[in-house]
């Protein structure tokens, strides 16, 4: 999976890492304030509509990053201006607003929107105008077919293969590794994509999948599904859930006096699941948490503190810097590294630089020279322990004293 880098690339990697790390670590006071005509970076977020809650997280992160970048040297010494539009959670609006940003507002650069459908709608526009587009939330990398589209979250090119193995590795490490499992998934494209991969990889590793069930996205009634899970009584329950679906499923299981032995949840609402009476020891996907060793990454403490303050101010239900917010931070870090590295606002040069270099982001070192411009997969497993999310796998990313707890 991990491609071997050539010597010429190694130098680029080192240069990129150095540039990224230096920009994150250096106090802004040491740098001249950016001046001149602003560099306008356009993008949309779903500030209204059904994705608005997530967009609020992304907007805080983006605002923090624009201030961070302007506190350093801006882009090429010029201040950065974020031209943010509301795509109303609709892909057709995303498409037309990116047309507006590029052809009317004439922004210098763009950032991607949130969620697969708006991203794909915007990607077509970016492609027609040759713009670099960095996005952090498209869970099906193979759909990212545009040469200048880059991921800010390290899904890797085949998360349907890599991610299941991360959780299976974790499960294999517990005293009684699961021999049977149940796969449930929402019929949400990216969740279903991962669920099918999970089923295949599990069977490939000799774990018997007793039951594979799909339910409609946004389902509220898990009674019948819970009964079938209880009847199957698997060693491991994998749920391709979104939002509050996991809370509802676990509640339905409790009503049947059944507690799953080990249970994983793909994209749940982090706060409600951590605080749920049923959420103890729930496992989940992540790329980062506001804990060690991640807090030691350059800029992490400052950004986490700033994020908490702003999220609290606008009454977000979950105010801890999480993987969602870090995805947006990573977007800006990659764009900043690309601009500085290419020493240009030219999209072709930025894209070429990014493909040849590795960028240090809050989500770790990222490269873009693999299939679909993806690099190494960086998925991890976190677990609810005492109402808090703790990274438990791979072990080297677990905080001191934290370990995976089997049920």
């Amino acid at each position, binding site marked *: 999976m991990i491609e071997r880098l050539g010597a010429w690339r190694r130098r680029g990697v080192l240069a990129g890492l150095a540039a990224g790390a230096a920009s994150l670590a250096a106090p802004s006071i040491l740098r001249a304030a950016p001046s001149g005509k602003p560099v306008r970076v356009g993008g949309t*977020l779903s*500030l*209204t509509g059904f994705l608005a809650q997530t967009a609020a997280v992304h*907007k805080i992160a983006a605002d923090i990053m624009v201030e961070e970048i302007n506190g350093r040297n801006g882009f090429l010494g010029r201040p950065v201006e974020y*031209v*943010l*539009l*509301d*795509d*109303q959670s*609709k*892909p*057709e*609006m995303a*498409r*037309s*607003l990116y*047309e*507006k940003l*590029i*052809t*009317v507002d004439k922004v210098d650069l763009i950032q991607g929107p949130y969620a*697969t*459908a708006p991203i*794909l*709608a915007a*990607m*077509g526009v970016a492609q*027609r105008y040759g713009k670099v587009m960095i996005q952090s939330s498209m869970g099906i990398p193979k*759909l990212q*077919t545009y040469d200048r589209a880059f991921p800010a979250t390290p899904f890797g090119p085949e998360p349907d293969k890599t991610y299941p193995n991360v959780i299976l590795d974790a499960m294999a490490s517990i005293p009684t590794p699961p021999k049977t499992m149940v796969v449930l998934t929402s*019929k*949400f*494209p990216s969740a*279903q*994509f991962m669920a099918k991969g999970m089923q295949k990889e599990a069977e490939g590793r000799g774990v018997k999948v007793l039951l594979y069930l*799909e339910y*409609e*996205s*946004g389902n509220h009634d898990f009674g019948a599904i819970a009964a079938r899970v209880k009847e199957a009584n698997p060693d491991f329950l994998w749920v391709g859930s979104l939002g509050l679906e996991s809370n509802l499923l676990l509640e339905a299981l409790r009503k049947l006096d059944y507690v799953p032995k080990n249970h994983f949840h793909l994209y749940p609402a982090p706060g409600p699941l951590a605080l749920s009476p049923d959420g103890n020891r729930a496992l989940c996907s992540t790329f980062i948490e506001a804990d060690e060793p991640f807090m030691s990454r350059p800029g992490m403490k400052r950004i986490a503190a700033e994020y908490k303050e702003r999220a609290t101010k606008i009454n977000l239900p979950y105010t801890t810097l999480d993987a969602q917010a870090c995805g947006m931070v990573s977007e800006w870090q990659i764009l900043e590294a690309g601009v500085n590295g290419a020493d240009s606002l030219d999209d072709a040069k930025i894209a070429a630089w990014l493909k040849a270099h590795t960028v240090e982001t809050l989500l770790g070192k990222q490269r873009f020279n693999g299939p679909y411009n993806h690099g190494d997969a960086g998925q991890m497993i976190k677990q609810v322990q005492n109402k808090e999310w703790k990274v438990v796998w791979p072990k080297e990313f677990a905080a001191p004293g934290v370990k995976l707890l089997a049920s």
Partner: protein
Amino acid sequence: MNAARDLPRLAAALAIGAFALLPTAGLPAFYDSFFYLVFFWVSLSTSWALLSGFAGYFSLGHAAFFGVGLYTTAVLAAKFDVPFLLTLPAAAILPALLAVVIGAIVFRLRRLRGELFALLTLAVTFVIATVVLNTPIDGGGGIFMSAVPLPSLMATPTGTLYLLAFVICVSTLAIAWKVSRSRLGMGLFAIHDDEDVAEAKGVPTFRYKLTAFALSAGIAGIVGGVHAMFVGFITVAGTFELTVPLYVVLMSVLGGSRSWFGPAIGATVITTLLYSFSSGDQAMIGRAVVGFILIAAILWLPDGAVPAIAKWLKPRRAASVRTGADVAPAATPARSIGDRNMLEVRGVTKRFGGLLALGGVDLDVREGEIVGLVGPNGSGKTTLINVISGHYPLSGGTIALDGVQIGALPAHDIAHRGVARTYQIPRPFANMTALENVVAAATFGGPVRKPAEIRDEALHWMAFTGLSGKEDVLPAGLNLHERKFLELARALAARPKLLLLDEVLSGLNPAEVDNAIRLVRAIRAQGATIVFVEHLMRAVVELSDRVAVLNEGKLFALGAPREVMRDPRVVSIYLGKAYAA
């Protein structure tokens, strides 16, 4: 005069030409994209209004037909490599067929009107979404359209989609315009106001509703087909969501859903507003402003912006286009009663569950005769009128009009064959002017004539009933006496062989009753055969050639008025005392 008439057409032609060439004008591509979405919403909201605005069948299921069209194109193009343009006819036909199937079931059931129809169409959306989600049509993974080649109709892909959306939009508006001015449109408007009356006046309501539903669904489908390419990644959740029905309703209500152009105005205003507040700092403000405008529009422009503007302009225009309504009633000499039966009622039975409303009524009415139908309340008089006019299906027996069996025919067919009726409580089409009410009755109830002839005849009957000068007044602006006479004018405009009058004199003052009696005599003088239900004995005696008394759903007595009124049996069951001549 001609220039004034041609000016709107010239302006429309220029606008169409200008918009058609917009992608070649060198404007930023965003405008192609923006206008694409304007055309998209104009087409969708206008297509919704064809059924829901014109006919009043409020649908919350427009996303179903839009979604079927969208998935038709997506599946054919992305999974079967059918060229994109070739998928579009299928994207229109499939939803139209679906609408015909649904309509063929739903429109037969009277109880599925109003909110039940809205809920049913919403349920259809969920059913279709479930089918699409749980079959290989989608299966939950979505359909990515990037590999589908878009034909180069214009220089850019966005320009091509713009052009397709524009053509569909112009076609949709042309269809809506044509329908609104056609016999179909008039029928749909009548259905909107009172479907039962529309049917009784000769509107083939089932066929018209089905046609409107199919047109509405077909347009929504082809809009969806093009939109599949615009969006690029198709998911069930994004397609069958409530946004489509919600927006088309709001747009149509804002612009005026009974107007062919109203939804277009609403769609343009709302789409533009949504874009005007797309800045990240104004997102919530934008939503609030749109919401406020809609609330204000609903409060102060309940019929929508376009009808409000038309109403504001009307007094000036009316002064210039009004033509004379001074067609005097023809002084037709009185005709004698013919020998043949115009109406033959044989053993007519009508049951409502366990209630026997009519229990084997026999009644003949000769050509040119006036038969008064009397009886105590609940005796079956109005029920008999309703079964003769086809409003209620027969439970048993036969009814023949001029020798032709009509008992099993639908009401509109009976109206075509020459039966017209009035209602005890006037039921005019509330959103049509008095003249439009009479024109509609003449159009659907009478023989086929040219529109100008129909209008002249309608004016004639309005003058005949003393309603000259009230042509442009809505029924709400008429008093009871005038509304009763409007009922008569509508019935007469259909040139009926048989006129059924249901308590046309009730509620009138003595002077108005005298006037009405004179009018009925004048109608009879023109040769009409009349059956009338009446409680006012003076009128019954003065007008009737014969009187039929109904009691407990059966014919109790039949004969000359004065003889029947003096029949002690009749007196005992109905009058309570002998009528003194």
